[in-house]
């Protein structure tokens, strides 16, 4: 709410009104009862936007780590910032968190400009830094209690322990926890102030697949609680599994952005249906005649490109119709790995740190 003064066009009286920037209000002049419409000046704030980054840039000496990127994170979504090591993920997220100072660009967090208003929104956000390691000799519960006491707004610790499935570990010292548990505590920690936005910088790096899935579960729970999650990762499965919206960053630039489906349809290959051990050349020709793109592979399989999954049934019914024999089928869908490969010519996971 901001205060705004207006001059009444009828009686020239100055009147004061309150409203949100950009809002249009019908007001009544207190002196002469004239009704009128006023627009509260200022940028109209989109209440659905959690993070707004525009033309953000970070230069280290002679390295441009983040190169003029812009994006918007909506409230309540899991936003995945996907990119290989050294792409500029941490630099970006830490600029949003006011830990690093941008070389150029602007960031609005929950409507506040982080350059000037970061302190005012500290209570409403929470972060898990990359490779975070908390105080060695606090128990799990103490760790949560300690950080919660730093805030005015405090969530119930028991509920957090419950939700993160940490009750059975609450008395263990942090230093004695496994890597997976440490990360779960790290995510749990980011809930102690019941924040609106949670930043997680590579929360599953270095974990084994089982521990990784457990952390994913915990992150999925955050969305269920209505939190906005800004997640950086170099695991495409993580983004595929969790994210509502994905931005792929490569060498400091966002090279693609959208929902998983959008990315796959825009940049991905078509799905390939493998018909196993089908040595009939007739079958291939038949499918070609029916308008499918079909190839024989060297080992006796037929590969058919299909646009979407429903086409599988169509292909199979054609085969059955002609009584063509085969051992089975295999469907290989397109994935983010492939999208990344197409966009950059490099593999996501093998990209060396620069």
């Amino acid at each position, binding site marked *: 709410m901001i205060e705004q003064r207006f001059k009444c066009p009828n009686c020239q009286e100055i009147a004061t009104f309150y409203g949100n920037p950009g809002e249009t209000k019908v007001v009544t002049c207190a002196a002469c009862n004239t009704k009128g419409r006023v627009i509260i000046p200022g940028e109209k704030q989109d209440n659905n936007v959690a993070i707004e980054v525009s033309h953000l840039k970070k230069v*280290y000496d002679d390295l441009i780590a983040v190169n003029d990127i812009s994006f918007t994170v909506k409230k309540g979504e899991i936003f995945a910032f996907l990119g290989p090591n050294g792409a500029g993920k941490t630099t970006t997220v*830490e600029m949003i*968190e*006011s*830990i*690093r*100072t941008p070389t150029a660009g602007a960031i609005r967090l929950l409507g506040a400009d982080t350059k000037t208003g970061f*302190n005012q929104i*500290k*209570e409403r*956000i*929470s*972060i*898990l*830094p*990359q*490779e*975070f*390691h*908390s*105080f*060695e*000799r*606090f128990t799990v519960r*103490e760790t949560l209690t*300690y*950080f919660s*006491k*730093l*805030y*005015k707004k405090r969530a119930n610790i028991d509920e957090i322990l419950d939700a993160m499935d940490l009750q059975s570990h609450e008395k263990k*010292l942090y230093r004695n926890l496994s890597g997976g548990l440490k990360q779960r505590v790290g995510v749990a*920690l980011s809930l102690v*102030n019941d924040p609106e936005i949670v930043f997680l910088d590579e929360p599953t790096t270095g974990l084994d697949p089982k521990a990784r899935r457990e952390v994913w579960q915990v992150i999925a729970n955050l969305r269920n609680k209505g939190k906005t999650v800004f997640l950086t990762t170099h695991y495409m499965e993580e983004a595929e599994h969790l994210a509502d919206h994905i931005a792929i960053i490569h060498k400091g630039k966002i090279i693609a952005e959208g929902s998983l489906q959008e990315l796959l349809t825009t940049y991905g290959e078509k799905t390939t249906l493998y018909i196993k051990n089908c040595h009939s050349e007739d079958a291939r020709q038949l499918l070609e005649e029916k308008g499918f793109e079909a190839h024989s592979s060297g080992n006796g399989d037929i590969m058919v490109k299909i646009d979407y999954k429903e086409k599988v049934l169509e292909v199979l019914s054609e085969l059955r119709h002609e009584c063509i024999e085969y051992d089975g089928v295999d469907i290989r869908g397109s994935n983010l790995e492939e999208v990344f490969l197409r966009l950059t010519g490099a593999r996501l996971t093998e990209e060396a740190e620069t």
Partner: protein
Amino acid sequence: MNLKIVGTDFLYSIRSWTRSRGTVFWSLLFPVMLILLFGAIFSGMGESKYTLYVQDLDNTDMSHSLVTILNKTNVLNIKNVTKNDDITKYIKDNNIKNLIVIPEGYENDITRSFSDPSAKVNITYYFDPTETQTNQILRSVISSVLEGLNMQLTQGKTIIGLTEQSTVTENFGFIDFFIPGMIGFTIMQQSIYGSIERNTKFRKDGILRKLLTTPITRSEWILAKMLFMLFLAFISTSVAIGVGVLAFGIKVNINLLTIIIVIATSFLFSGIGMIIGRFVKEEETADMAAGAISFPMMFLAGTFFAVESMPSIIQIIARALPLYYVNEGLRNAMIYMNQTEALINGGIVLIFAAIFFIAGVILTKWKED
């Protein structure tokens, strides 16, 4: 400034500290062991000879021969005091436990006694009554020497008598010297390494970045940590004093100046730790740098042995080291009761503390580049 947050952090630091066997060992047990060990080695070195100071105001053949006879007993280690020294002041300044004065006219009186039966001369024996064992030995040695002389000179008549004068001097041993040194050393170690952990390990582990996004301010955090460091410093000081009093019976004066020096020392070395942590980012390397600074300082600044007994080049170096002034300040404040010296040294410690702590705070930042 939110004091509740400061209090919380302080209490959590203590709790976490009690769980770390390493830190408890280094800040409590290690100093105790060193004190006991050094105390046992150096205080137990009993002298086989007793030192007797002699002021010969007569300076004649006879007085010289008395000194020679005393020397020949082989029990005494004779040290001469010049004629011009004021004896009471000399005893006080140099902490002299045993001293005899041969009066002017000694030879004269003895020679006169051959013709004048009433002629007599008295040797004065100054001693420290607290040193009962030494006194007994020295008194019997001196009396028997004088008796022998009387016998020789006059067949039994007492010409040379002995008057006794007790002077209370303060009795400072190695342990009195060592305990303040140990206190300074322990606080130095705690403060430097604690500060380094907070500024390197906590940075690497992301704790500082996490804190940066929570409402705690840097001043609240630093205040909480300094309170904790002071808590440690006072525990270590109490333990060192406790061992000194219980095991070695030292006398300690706890006064405002002692407390101020302890506090300033903690700030001083926390500041040095911050500065190291600012330039050496890896915890292990920073610890090594801290060792490279604190270990030589411990030896050069007179923690174990008086700087005055070292080569003059080391004495010059010592005066550039903050720990030297901590040691001197603490010794004068809590043991020697020399308040002027304590004040001067304490003042220098305060100046060092202000410089290093402020520089440390200014140089340390939580933000990343």
